[in-house]
């Protein structure tokens, strides 16, 4: 992995116009993705992770959703400033996307081969024959058996796992620099999940693709990510290398996420759940959005939003607990225990 930054998101805010007013789905987030790197974005439903990826692709549902502020810098371009028409040049070519539900993300009335060939013919200017050969190669790349015969079939003749491979093949068609995967394994069963993740890893190694991996499955994160960003209520609350986040989490929300991860050893104990519900982003709270659900919340958490405190060169967290004047708070014992367990497994696995 090189240190070359390929995509930089600066102070991005995304809002939705609704009948009740403006919903601030993403609030001032910044992150960057390096070449060949996998950045995982985790968070619960409604935390703004999917909206972030849609904004990157320029696929916000117009006219309701719009980029309110910020920059999406890729090469010399700022995607936040481009029109839908200008974005079509980059979509599918430089930036490609894999979607969550393979059962609905393929056109049911179009042959699978045609759907793969579409991008090839548009972005790579291939003629029909070239595109056909290339499409077969792509389907073989994502390990679809008997790819040539499968080209003429329709999506309903494929299983869920096979369809997701087709979606990946479509995304890979034009050697994208950045691959955005929006919960690509959530709708698949566990054995298929592992196969899909393997395929994605192999492809990344071969083509040095950068991957933005949206998920709420921390197990998957540990498996695929180089760096992790934790989102809560439209903000990134903690970002860092995968080890830093798993072994030295700083934000109480990250503690909560780690604590609520079920494990095999945990038979009798009740599963930990973060109390309360996320805030309504129609009226985001003044202070730290997580404060009402945070048992370590300080008074200032209700007054003022915490800035990003630097933990290490790569590790940042937005919690007042890191302020020099704050009391010394350690993660709860259950989370510490969980971290030790993971550590053991990690080493055993290496």
């Amino acid at each position, binding site marked *: 992995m090189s240190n070359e930054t390929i995509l930089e998101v600066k102070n991005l805010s995304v809002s939705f116009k609704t009948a009740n007013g403006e919903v601030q789905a993403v609030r001032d987030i910044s992150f960057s993705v390096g070449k060949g790197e996998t950045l995982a974005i985790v968070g619960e439903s409604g935390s703004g992770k999917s909206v972030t990826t849609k904004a990157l*692709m320029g*696929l916000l549902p117009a006219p309701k959703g719009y980029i309110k502020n910020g920059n999406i810098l890729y090469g010399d371009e700022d995607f936040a400033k481009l029109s*839908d*028409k200008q974005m*079509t*040049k*980059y*979509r*599918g*070519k430089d930036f*490609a*996307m894999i*979607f969550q*539900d393979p059962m*609905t*993300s*393929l*056109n*049911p*009335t*179009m042959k699978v081969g045609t759907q793969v060939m*579409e*991008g090839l013919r*548009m*972005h790579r200017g291939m003629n029909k024959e070239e595109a056909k050969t290339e499409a077969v190669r792509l389907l073989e790349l994502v390990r679809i058996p008997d790819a040539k015969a499968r080209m003429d079939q*329709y999506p*309903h003749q494929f299983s869920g796992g096979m369809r997701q491979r087709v*979606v990946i093949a*479509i*995304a890979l*068609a034009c050697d994208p620099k950045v691959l955005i995967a929006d919960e690509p394994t959530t709708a698949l069963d566990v054995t298929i999940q592992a196969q899909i993740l393997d395929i994605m890893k192999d492809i990344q190694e071969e083509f040095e693709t950068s991957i933005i991996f949206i998920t709420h499955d921390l197990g998957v994160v540990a498996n695929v990510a180089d760096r992790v960003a934790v989102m809560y209520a439209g903000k990134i609350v903690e970002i860092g290398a995968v080890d830093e986040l798993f072994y030295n989490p700083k934000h109480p929300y990250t503690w909560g996420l780690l604590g609520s991860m079920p494990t095999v050893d945990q038979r009798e104990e009740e599963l930990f759940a973060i109390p309360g519900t996320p805030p309504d982003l129609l009226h985001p709270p003044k202070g730290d959005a997580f404060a009402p659900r945070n048992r370590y919340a300080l008074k200032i958490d209700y007054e003022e939003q915490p800035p990003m405190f630097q933990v290490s060169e790569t590790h940042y967290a937005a919690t007042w607990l890191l302020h020099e004047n704050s009391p010394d708070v350690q993660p709860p014992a259950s989370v510490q225990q969980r971290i030790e367990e993971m550590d053991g497994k990690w080493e055993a696995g290496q």
Partner: protein
Amino acid sequence: MARYIVTRIVYMVITLFIIASITFFLMKLMPGTPLSAADRLPEAQQQIVLEQYGLDKPVPLQYVDYMLGLVQGDLGVSFQFDNRDVSSILENRIGPSLQLGIQSLIIGSFLGAILGLIAAIFHNGILDFSSTLLAVIGTSIPSFIFAGLLQYYLGVQWQVLPVATWGTFAHTIMPTIALLIFPMAICARFMRTEMLEVLNKDYIMTARAKGVKWSSVILKHGLRNALIPLITVLGPLAVSLLTGTLVIEQIFAVPGIGEQFVTAVTTNDYPMIMGTTLFFSFLFVLIILIIDILYGIIDPRIRLDGGK
């Protein structure tokens, strides 16, 4: 596919048989006799006439006679037209009705689909509202009102088209327009709803993420999927056109089957009623078959062989 069609044709024959039977007995329940206009005839002569047409036999026996004739392709002779064959009368009259029906169904659904498409693309814009307004007008005002308006303005006031009767292509324009407004309005409404729904589907997002232009997204990815439900309404629409022609043919004095049917019913011309009903029924089951075949062509998920 061939096996499917053969099976369907067998069902069609059974359906037609049931329709023929029900119609036959219902028709016999109608008040009056074919002779009601000739009441002044002496009893003995009436008896002779009834015997001549087999109407003196008990109804079940008449039914058997009719059905036996029917399977041999004999629709009987008309009472009102000097014993001419029902099939030859129908033959002469099918042309105008079919032409009007087909013209208005094809043009109407095509225009409707385009209107609906425009409405969906410019969702909530001025074009959307005007096309919706047009659709509401088209569905709520009956075709004979349009027929009258057309006759008054195009025929009488501006004299650009013949007011009525049959002959050249120009004669078909006004009845076709009057007939096509309803299917056009229905298709426009359906197309709009379906297209808007389809454009919210995940695969549209996939296509856009591929970098497909918005216009191609709509035409290549949206249209075919939106057309599937539209085909469903074409069947009932075709039927409504068949009944619509009954009225429109009267207004424009078109020598079609519809006009013939109305006369046959009012004069108790039994073989004519049966023949026309069977013809309409045949047309209807045929349309349904065609639509089912169309389904299989447009939607690959529907396999007409019934699976393997």
